[in-house]
């Protein structure tokens, strides 16, 4: 589904992404783990289109994404969520989701039709709101919403795009323990029509949700395997400095 072929990114003489190759099968849940400075964020930005690679290619269902802009990749079915909330703060949660959904339904180009009244859009928004647990808060403005709710909306926006591939950047960053469980459940509940790649710090999430785990260190892929294999790997243990840190 999503294929990364020998991707490299150098800033001057500093090589941040070093020959990274990945292959995600349709419906797969892949988590990218790695210590700070391993190049996870850069890899993420390369996939999303914020950065252009020095070398290598990215393919989505065989189509070459590498030369495409951020918006073009989004139109090809690649959705992303941000590590730091990047929402439409002045608008309501419903309006936020409508913006994403309208694009997905091709309503953004219409010049005179009132999209707010479109039943398909309504349904889409309500469906996604249900998925991320925001149904009762649709009319709230983002400005007045709690951090946790905004984190949910972050994912909601990406889901409302009805993407083929969902790229998530540390989705539980800054989220309290109660809500982390909700995130685990949300990720489990997502349909296998969706292929998901998550860049994460949180080991628990990785082991719980992932089909396969890729571990980066110093910009290189140093390990790839199932959660069990990852847990058993001495190399990975060493990278994370002596044993697993699995707090809730």
């Amino acid at each position, binding site marked *: 589904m999503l294929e990364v072929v020998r991707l490299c990114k150098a800033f001057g003489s500093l090589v941040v992404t070093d020959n990274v190759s990945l292959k995600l099968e349709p419906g797969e849940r892949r988590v990218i783990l790695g210590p700070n400075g391993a190049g996870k964020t850069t890899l993420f930005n390369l996939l999303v289109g914020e950065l252009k690679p020095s070398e290598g290619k990215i393919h989505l269902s065989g189509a070459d994404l590498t030369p495409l802009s*951020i*918006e073009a990749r989004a139109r090809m079915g690649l959705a992303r969520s941000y590590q730091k909330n990047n929402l*439409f703060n002045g608008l309501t949660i419903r309006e936020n989701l409508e913006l994403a959904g309208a*694009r997905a339904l091709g309503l953004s180009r219409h*010049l005179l039709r*009132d999209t*707010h009244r479109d039943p398909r859009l309504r349904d889409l928004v309500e469906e996604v709101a249900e998925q991320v647990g925001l149904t009762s808060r649709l009319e709230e403005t983002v400005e007045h919403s709690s951090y946790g709710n905004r984190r949910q909306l972050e994912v909601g926006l990406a889901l409302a795009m009805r993407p083929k591939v969902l790229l998530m950047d540390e989705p539980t960053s800054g989220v309290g323990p109660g809500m982390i469980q909700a995130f685990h459940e949300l990720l489990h509940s997502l349909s296998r029509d969706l292929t998901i790649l998550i860049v994460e710090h949180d080991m628990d999430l990785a082991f719980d949700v992932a089909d396969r785990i890729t571990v980066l260190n110093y910009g290189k892929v140093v390990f790839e395997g199932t959660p069990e294999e990852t847990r058993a790997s001495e190399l990975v243990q060493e990278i994370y400095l002596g044993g697993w840190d699995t707090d809730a």
Partner: protein
Amino acid sequence: MFQQTPLKLATLALIILGLLLYAILGGYFARELVIEVAVLAILAMSLDMVAGYGGMVSLCHGAIFGLGAYMYAIVNVLGEGSPISGTLAALAVSGLFGLLVGAITSRTHGIYFIMTTLAFGQMAYVLIFDASSLGGDDGMWGLGRGDLSGLGINLEDSLQFAILCLLCVPLSYAVLSGVLRSGFGRSLVGIRENEGRMRALGITIWKIKAIGFALSGTVAGLAGVLAAQHTMFVSPELMTWTVSGEVLVVVILGGLGTLIGPAVGAVLLIFLKHALSSFTDYWHIVIGVLLILVVMSGGRGVYGGLELFWERRRNSLNKQEV
């Protein structure tokens, strides 16, 4: 986001009916004022679409307005074309100019954006000013109004022309509000709120901005045509950057981002100017002080403040019911 509310529609109705009554009952001078208000209201609403809703503060709308007026004059006087063809040409040219400005400036923001629009507006002004065939500083005379005699309407009559201008106000409002409620219009607001996220959702930013500016420009051009037909004369004075500044002032006085607010601002400014100038030559000071006060007190404008008050009252009543 734009929402069609009863308050907005009521305000629109009040403005139109009030001005209509004034035109009918007042004399010739009253009609002159009404026409001025209508033209300024249309221009200000067009600016609000890109500035208030699109977040693109343009200082070239005066120039677009003037371009519309001049295009009408060129077709009608130099080309001896009909008023209809003059109007269509004006709308096309002002729309095209808007499209270009919107597209070219799509990557600039903040003060740089404002100044770039200023630059483009000045370019248009200088082009017109220096064109000797267009009369230069003296302008062009002899423009004609439309001929609706087939419908029994005589536009040479000031009352009937005033009514035409008044009708164009709700027409412009309908077009602009329709666009703002559409998927396209919402994308425009989305870009204002968070351009980066809109890109990540798959929107091509420059296209939305360009089309938004084009639509806004077309409505501004309509205002230009009416102004040209009103005085049956055009001069480069229509296009100076201070005109663009004044339109922005009207938008702020009425209420940025409310669509009907700028129309309120137009009514306020024209009547205030008229009232003040009847007993002093120095009404600029009053407008200047008023503007500063409005901005310093939060910048919501007259109608904007009213709308906020109305919303708060409605919300607190709703809470009481619950």
